[in-house]
């Protein structure tokens, strides 16, 4: 039957374009046909970009697995796989409607649940758009798993994962991006600049991660009696590095794909994204080198991600030169932030709060500061308002959620389980049964 579909596909191409075969082409039919082909290109580009963004799920899974201990590796990958699986269903059922549904108030959407905007035979754009949006929602969700790694109850995590994809992320998303579809958000109406989501995706995830890490408390052995910070080295640095490379290529879908149109615009976004990532990695490495006297791998990997998060908001409205600066600042910031967060005894095993929360905020501010069109007090003000709102909403909502979960089903595994590893007790699995792993 592929044949049938193949032909069908041909016919579906903006009728006029191929109508040319049957009917005589006219100027009008040609004009329509050209638009049709551009539309097709927009579908192809948006969906290829969505596939790249999906791949970021693998990147997050590897970074988080590599930067934690072998005894929790199965648990980490299960949490990441579930973030995406649950997210794909929760965002389909609820999240998309809240984020992009018709929205009189500017505060949340009210229709389009269960992808009801799509009718067989109708315009399939909603499907392409949804596909691109669902991978963003899953990204916000998966950021949190790293900060809560190595001590969170699996069942509790599943609850959280559903709530953030269905509710926490979409609500803020509606405020900033709702107008991209049927919605209309109060924040975007003020002129908030966040092209691909430094705040909408990364800070929202990062601040929820902060709430999670605080409510959970640190891993056993992370802080000594006298409050000194102990090292709990990640078990597989090459895997973590592969994760960073995968995230980087994913960002080539994340930022330029946010045009959702295949146009020359994407070129500058590609370049900005790349330059910021490179500058972030370099700046973080040299900062770590200065402070620790060694070019530390973990910090350098965080630095690349920090640069990429930093440029996400402004990737379409700053120059490549500015992108370098934005990335470099993010690279310095992430190292200092990781150290600070450790000092205040918030245990974030992978640096999710610093990379996504802090550098997401920086990137959003920078999108105003380095705006090609110039930075006015109003622009900066709105950017700060957006940054602040994101913190209050995401940290607040997540904090309440985690407190509730803690009070009811419990958020954290038992000390025995934590010491023995979550893999054995939570999943009854072992990540590396053939290897001699230190107990």
């Amino acid at each position: 039957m592929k044949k049938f579909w193949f032909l069908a596909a041909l016919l579906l191409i903006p009728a006029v374009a191929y109508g040319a075969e049957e009917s005589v082409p006219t100027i009008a039919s040609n004009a329509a046909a050209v638009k049709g082909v551009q539309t097709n290109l927009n579908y192809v580009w948006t969906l290829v970009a969505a596939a790249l963004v999906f791949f970021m799920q693998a990147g997050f899974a590897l970074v988080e697995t590599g930067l934690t201990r072998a005894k929790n590796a199965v648990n980490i990958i299960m949490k990441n796989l579930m973030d995406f699986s649950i997210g794909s269903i929760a965002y389909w059922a609820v999240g998309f409607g809240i984020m992009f549904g018709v929205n009189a108030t500017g505060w949340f959407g009210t229709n389009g649940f269960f992808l009801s905007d799509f009718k067989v035979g109708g315009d399939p754009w909603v499907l392409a758009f949804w596909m691109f949006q669902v991978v963003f929602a899953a990204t916000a969700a998966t950021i949190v798993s790293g900060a809560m790694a190595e001590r969170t109850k699996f069942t509790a995590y599943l609850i959280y994962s559903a709530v953030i994809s269905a509710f926490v992320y979409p609500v803020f998303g509606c405020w900033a991006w709702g107008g991209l579809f049927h919605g209309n958000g109060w924040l975007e109406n003020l002129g908030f600049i966040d092209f691909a989501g430094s705040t909408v995706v990364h800070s929202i995830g990062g601040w929820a991660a902060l709430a999670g890490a605080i409510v959970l408390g640190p891993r056993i052995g992370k802080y000594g009696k006298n409050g000194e910070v102990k090292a709990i080295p990640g078990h597989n640095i090459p895997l973590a590095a592969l994760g960073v490379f995968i995230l980087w290529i994913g960002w080539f879908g994340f930022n330029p794909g946010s045009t959702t149109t295949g146009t020359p615009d994407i070129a500058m976004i590609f370049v900005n994204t790349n330059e910021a990532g490179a500058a972030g990695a370099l700046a973080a490495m040299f900062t770590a080198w200065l402070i620790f006297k060694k070019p530390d791998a973990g910090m350098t990997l965080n630095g690349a991600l920090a640069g990429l998060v930093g440029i996400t908001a402004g990737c379409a409205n700053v120059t490549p030169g500015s992108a370098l600066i934005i990335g470099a600042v993010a690279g310095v910031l992430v190292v200092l932030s990781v150290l600070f967060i450790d000092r205040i005894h918030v245990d974030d095993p992978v640096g999710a709060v610093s990379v996504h929360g802090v550098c997401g905020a920086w990137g959003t501010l920078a999108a105003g500061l380095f705006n090609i069109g110039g930075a006015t007090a109003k622009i900066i003000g709105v950017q700060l308002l957006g940054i602040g709102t994101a913190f209050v909403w995401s940290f607040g909502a997540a904090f309440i959620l985690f407190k509730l979960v803690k009070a009811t089903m419990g958020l954290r595994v038992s000390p025995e389980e934590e010491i023995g590893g979550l893999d054995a007790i939570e999943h009854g699995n072992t990540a590396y049964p053939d290897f001699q792993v230190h107990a």
Partner: protein
Amino acid sequence: MKKIEAIIKPFKLDDLKAALHDLGVQGMTVSEVKGFGRQKGHTEIYRGAEYVVDFIPKAKVEIVIQADLVEKVIETIMTSTRTGKIGDGKIFVLDVETVCRIRTGERGEEAI
């Protein structure tokens, strides 16, 4: 001289090391072993097939010392590694006839 072999719970190793260090013990050798005893292992599942992991990770600490220190060391091991829970481990004492330090060729007690 005597050789003391202690089979302990791995997460107690650092405490033991510190305690022995305070006692003035100069050196020790540690190996990762799997123990089988009264403490029962746990069950895992793999693709539907259950299997019992009945060998439990333990640390084996070997300390060679002067005979007169044996009791002190045993005490130290007991106090620093005991949790009171099953699986705490064992201490074995064996006789050592000769000790040499490779670096210097010293023999006997000064080689320890």
